[in-house]
């Protein structure tokens, strides 16, 4: 890479901007019904309502979640020095599952009523609220258990995360045995990653969280590069390794928390978008982080549009978490083969 990081980042963002624009265009024009964009913009009903109340919030939602999961994936891969790390590696998926399952189990009790009112105050469903709480609690637990003698050990944290996620799925299976089947069905479907229609304040709040997290991580990008040299190598170049880890961990967790609140667990995006970006743009995080935000947003908007169109005839929608993997896996293999 002969060009400076600033120039390469600018090139990557300029190259990705049209992709995002196309994705948004596709996302806005495809859906359960047909829509005339021109009519909608002139205020003709029902097209205007479909565009402004359904399609635009849905596209914005997908973009926020795709960007948040992708930047979190980049950060966690760098901070754990492991290419297999995904946004849920710190036990976030297990925590979200426990939270959601528990909320379903105890809704109707006094504790459940308190949870419902707290969640309603924020504008989230109790299940969403509980899932976010569960995933963030799990992240803090795994991060804490991954530390020994005053510093984070990546292998240790990864192991604890894997063990915790297994423990959580066992717990959820046990809860399922106790709960009514239709209740567990709803929880499982939501956990599989479903894009719905969120109230505007929730969208704005989640978007702000993802934006701030992406900015913090991009500011840390130079330090994340140096972490590849090892803790000592980074420290010898003036990096406060512990502080960098802690700050990037919290920024990534906040972005993932926002994504979990909006959609449950959308897999694959946070693992594969960063790798796809690296295959094209190289390993420099100062380029990879902002590029992954745009790439992740475009990818999830497109995946959602494809999901809506493919299953239009069936009158249903698969969880977008399934579509991302169905669509992303072949695309990624193609990219991998072309580059090597």
């Amino acid at each position, binding site marked *: 890479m002969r060009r400076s990081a600033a120039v390469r980042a600018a090139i990557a963002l300029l190259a990705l901007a049209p992709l995002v624009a196309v994705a948004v265009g596709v996302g806005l024009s495809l859906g359960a019904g047909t829509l005339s964009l021109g009519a909608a913009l002139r205020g003709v009903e029902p097209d205007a309502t479909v565009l402004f109340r359904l399609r635009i919030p849905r596209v914005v939602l997908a973009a926020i979640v795709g960007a948040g999961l992708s930047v979190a994936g980049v950060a966690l891969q760098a901070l754990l020095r492991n290419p297999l790390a995904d946004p849920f590696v710190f036990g976030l998926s297990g925590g979200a599952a426990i939270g959601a399952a528990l909320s379903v189990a105890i809704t109707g009790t006094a504790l459940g009523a308190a949870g419902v009112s707290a969640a309603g105050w924020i504008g989230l469903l109790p299940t969403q609220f509980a899932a976010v709480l569960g995933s963030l609690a799990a992240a803090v637990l795994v991060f804490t258990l991954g530390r020994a003698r005053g510093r984070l050990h990546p292998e240790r944290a990864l192991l604890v995360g894997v063990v915790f996620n297994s423990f959580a799925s066992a717990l959820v299976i046990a809860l399922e045995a106790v709960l009514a089947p239709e209740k567990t069905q709803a929880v499982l479907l939501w956990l599989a990653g479903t894009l719905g229609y969120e109230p505007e304040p929730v969208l704005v709040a989640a978007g702000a969280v993802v934006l701030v997290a992406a900015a913090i991580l991009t500011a840390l990008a130079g*330090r994340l590069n140096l972490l590849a040299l090892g803790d*000592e*190598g980074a420290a010898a170049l003036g990096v*406060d390794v512990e502080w960098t880890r802690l700050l990037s961990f919290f920024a990534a967790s906040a972005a993932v928390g926002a994504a979990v609140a909006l959609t449950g667990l959308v897999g694959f995006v946070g693992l594969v978008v960063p790798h796809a970006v690296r295959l094209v743009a190289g*390993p420099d995080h*100062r380029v990879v982080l902002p590029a992954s935000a745009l790439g992740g947003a475009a990818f999830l908007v497109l995946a959602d549009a494809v999901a809506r169109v493919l299953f239009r005839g069936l009158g249903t929608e698969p969880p977008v978490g399934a579509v991302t993997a169905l669509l992303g896996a072949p695309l990624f293999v193609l990219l991998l083969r072309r580059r090597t």
Partner: protein
Amino acid sequence: MTAPLLAIDSVRYRHAAHVPEAVAGVSLRVDPGEVVGLIGPNAAGKSTLARIACGLLRPATGTVRLRGDDAFALARRERARRVAFLSQEEPADLPFTAREVALMGRAPHLGLWALEAPGDRALAVAALAEADALDLADRPVAQLSGGERQRVFLARAFAQDAALLVLDEPTAALDLAHQVLLVTAVRKRARKGRGALLVLHDLALAGAACDRLVLLRGGRLLAEGGPQDVLRPEVLGEAYGTQVDVVPDPATGQPLVAPRIPR
């Protein structure tokens, strides 16, 4: 009189409870213009002392000063502008190119978004040339041989532009010509008022490369002085527990150390 680049005063360090001290009360200084060699048998505490000198390990007692300032009171980035460290254990599987790794040496000089200026890029290229790694510039480090990689990491240390270089066994992976190149580059820097602390195993090279040698054993200082004073059969025999011969180089008079191996 300018402050010494490095002044270590009676430092002690233990890696874990219930193990012997790795460094048990050592003092050491490097003045501007000086190349100092740290020699001694395995587990003498050389690498530990090198890390203490860079502020990477904090000694239990004793002080470390870089140009007169307490190394542990300096901001991390300021410390990294005063001392550059090359470890024995640099990673082999980096996805970055040699140029990008050399540019990492500029990190302590960059601002919030860590974006390098043209001046930083020029310094990185000069550092690559100084380490004879310019032809590797655009190759990923993971694809290089051990010796090539070592030259790239050396370029990173040069690009850091610190007055003091601390190099832990920098010549271990290098062929003869590149050992000479490294020593020449380090000595050239010293002539401009900089300095270096080199951990070396090759005693003949240490004698040729360094102005002063510090011999450690069991975490303690066993001998210190010019190569002629330290590289003597009775001193080395005691330090390493094996018999050695030392003969003067017929051309330069520098001490040449040869192990005595029964056949």
